[in-house]
């Protein structure tokens, strides 16, 4: 009698246990990737923070050539152990210690040159060349940004400080940046991220002005923060820890917390609202991805005409002339965002620039001067104005 009762009950429980898994799987399989499921996704509200406007933004590419021989750079990375190896240990100047690829260290490198920076950069770099990998290869990325306010007043900002002391000093002098720094004409230095080609040339800026306001991402590692001190900086860096940091009316610093190759974390980029034109985005490397930045700006900021107007910077797509099908997703999709002017260079990559041009995107061409290698995009000494 007991068996007669418990057996159906047991069978029922077996059925329930099986059915729960089956029913859950059925929901997962038949509903999850359907239009109906996606119609349930909550609509993202646009916050559209007002941040003022500017009349125009002029950008000068002081140097976009971060390195001059891609094969040499990749050889150093390969011999050091790949794209995840800490940049301070690869053995590049100014942190080479002569022990070979992947065996460098911040401490050993800086110990050799600490007394020379920022005063005697020529001697420091010459000394480093003896113990670093491919010492002729480094160049650097640095950009001058001139903002014209609505009242016509102009304000200058330096975006990044490049890599090689010798190359960056030469580039600064070519574009008059040395004098602008000395005179205090440049109002602040925005160090977008910690990568070697944007940051290792930091002492060059310090040589001319070691007190100017400095913005850094809060993801800077201890070596990077120490380098700022060791380079003779006498101010208090503004450590950016908020998603949006206003710099001046119409100019917003956007922070992205993204892990990056060579053990770097985070990048900041700039957004401008150009009066009657729309939004302009300017980046150092744009490791967060240009459309990620665009989509964040669309959600967070209010700008004229609700329109994307311009784009400038390294767009970090094929910096090593490498490729991946996901980059084609960007090449295919960028057109939908209708940028009127695209100024790109540096880590955008030659191949990407060519693919952009082939698809008819409004890429502003350059003049291929001062060791820039292609006229397909804006090169060293070239300018672009938004507004």
């Amino acid at each position, binding site marked *: 009698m007991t068996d007669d009762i418990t057996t159906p009950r047991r069978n029922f429980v077996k059925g329930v246990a099986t059915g*729960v898994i089956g*029913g859950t799987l059925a929901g997962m399989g038949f509903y999850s990737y359907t239009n109906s499921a996606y119609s349930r996704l909550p609509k993202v509200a646009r916050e559209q923070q007002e941040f003022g406007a500017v009349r125009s933004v002029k950008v000068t590419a002081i140097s976009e050539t971060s390195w001059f021989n891609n094969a040499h750079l990749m050889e150093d990375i390969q011999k050091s152990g*790949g794209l995840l190896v800490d940049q301070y240990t690869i053995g590049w100047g100014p942190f080479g210690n002569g022990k070979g690829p992947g065996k460098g260290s911040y401490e050993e490198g800086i110990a050799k040159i600490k007394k020379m920076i920022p005063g005697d950069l020529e001697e420091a770099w010459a000394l480093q060349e003896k113990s670093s990998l491919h010492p002729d290869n480094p160049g650097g990325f640095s950009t001058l940004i001139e903002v014209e306010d609505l009242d016509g007043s102009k304000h200058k900002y330096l975006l990044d400080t490049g890599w090689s002391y010798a190359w960056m000093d030469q580039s600064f002098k070519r574009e008059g940046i040395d004098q602008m720094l000395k005179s205090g004409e440049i109002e602040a230095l925005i160090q977008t991220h910690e990568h070697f080609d944007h940051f290792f040339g930091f002492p060059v800026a310090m040589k001319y002005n070691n007190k100017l306001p400095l913005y850094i991402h809060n993801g800077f590692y201890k070596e990077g923060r120490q380098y700022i001190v060791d380079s003779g900086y006498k101010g208090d860096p503004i450590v950016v820890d908020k998603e949006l940091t206003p710099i001046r009316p119409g100019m917003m610093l956007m922070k992205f917390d*993204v892990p990056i*190759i060579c053990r770097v974390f985070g990048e900041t980029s700039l957004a401008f609202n150009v009066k009657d034109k729309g939004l302009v985005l300017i980046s150092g490397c744009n490791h967060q991805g240009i459309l*990620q930045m665009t989509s964040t700006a669309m959600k967070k900021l209010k700008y004229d005409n609700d329109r994307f107007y311009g784009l400038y910077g390294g767009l970090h797509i094929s910096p090593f*002339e490498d490729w991946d*099908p*996901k980059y084609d997703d960007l090449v295919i999709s*960028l057109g939908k965002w209708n940028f009127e002017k695209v100024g790109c260079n540096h880590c955008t990559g030659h191949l990407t620039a060519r693919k952009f041009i082939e698809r008819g995107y409004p890429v502003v061409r350059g003049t291929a001067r001062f060791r820039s290698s292609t006229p397909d995009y804006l090169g060293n000494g070239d300018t672009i104005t938004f507004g």
Partner: protein
Amino acid sequence: MEAQNRNISYLESRKLVKRWRGPLPAIANLLMIFALFGVTWWIFQDPRGIMRMYTPYVGYMICRWMLILLIWVAYIFDFWPFKRSWLNKAHPVTKGVVLTTVSVVAMMLLIKGFFMGLLGQYGIAYFSPDRLHAMGLTEFYAEEYSTEAIMMFAAIASWLAPSWVVACENAPWQKLTQPARGITIAVVTFFLSTIVYFLTMHSHMAILFDPWQKYTAITPPYWEGFANTVSGNFHIAWIMSCTVTVWVYESIWERYPFNLIKTNWLRRTSAFFGIIAVALCMCFFIYYAQDLMWGETVRGTRREMAPDWRWLHVGETAIFWLVGVLGLNFYGGNWPTKFSRPVNVFLRTIISLLIGGAVYVLYYKYAHLFLGTQKGFAHPQQFPMIPMIWLINIALINQWFMDGWPGWKAVPKTETELNEVESAVIAHDVSWTPSLARGLAVGATAGVTIYFGVINILPWISQNVQIIK
């Protein structure tokens, strides 16, 4: 020899017995596995370590092919050419060292000899780093591209090779002796992997190069509209889900429910395609769950907002579950075992999901402090599958090659137990009755309700739980 004469595999012929009572064996083995993981990670993979193979694709390829070789040695070749008597008598550590060494040598021969040498030199150029380098790519990317292609092949083989044993029960070659059976199944699954590779990954590789190699591959690939990306990561998503489902079906599900089917061909076919069906359900759900958590993807973005990364992360998430599944099966005694098979399966599924979820959270919260990697969900050059598969490989070596040493030891099964192995192919403990049908209906309704409950709660979790600070 009795088991071998009856064509019962070594793994099925042995019984792993705890050396000590209580949780000590599991603790000892887990400690050893994590120690081995730490040491070998530092030697081979860690970007701060000795060999630094985590470039990333070199290390990615190695850990995936190592997994295949372990499966080949233990499941496909049943340890041939090693004699059963040696397997029964040799010390587990000796066996672990010898069998792992053989697997590594075979893997290197396959990668260097077959893929890079034969196929890369005489068939498809992108399998050879030397050819790519000679055509103008940097040495680094020449190696990365070719190892990426070889790694993708392994992803497919890691699903099909065990599937033939687990789902198809080695049919129709189950009666062949070794090495004939091993060679046949290896060749057949390799052949099938090649076909699937061409259908899923070849187009991905073809658009790595400029211009797109449209005369040798379909470009843009056929899945672009459906997956919202041209990246082959879409296929990684469902193929890795298949790999995980094979082992779920083999271990914590004890081949339930397809082992209820008595007709051999129907059971095997149902299991093979059933695994794919379960994997597709898992795949679409994990993708959708990410959209619920992080917002809908924007094509052309990078990292966690990009469709290609979300598909990749489907496979990564599934692998975290596999860690939970194998952990429960190997070191938790496949607990619980005291209820009926369906109830055990249900409870183990829940437990393994909880373990997998915990491993997922712990990985993203703390792994960057130990592995030489960066914190964050979507680093373009970081693949959590590398450390997870590395860990799984070590657990498999411990379980298959070392008989669970030091916590467990292998004891030959008795005649009665061997008979049970043979009869266990078909389960007799669940049969169709009206009460089972009622239970199924109630359970299915509850399952659908649970599903909708989960998708409703995910956005709330996204708003209130932060894994990475």
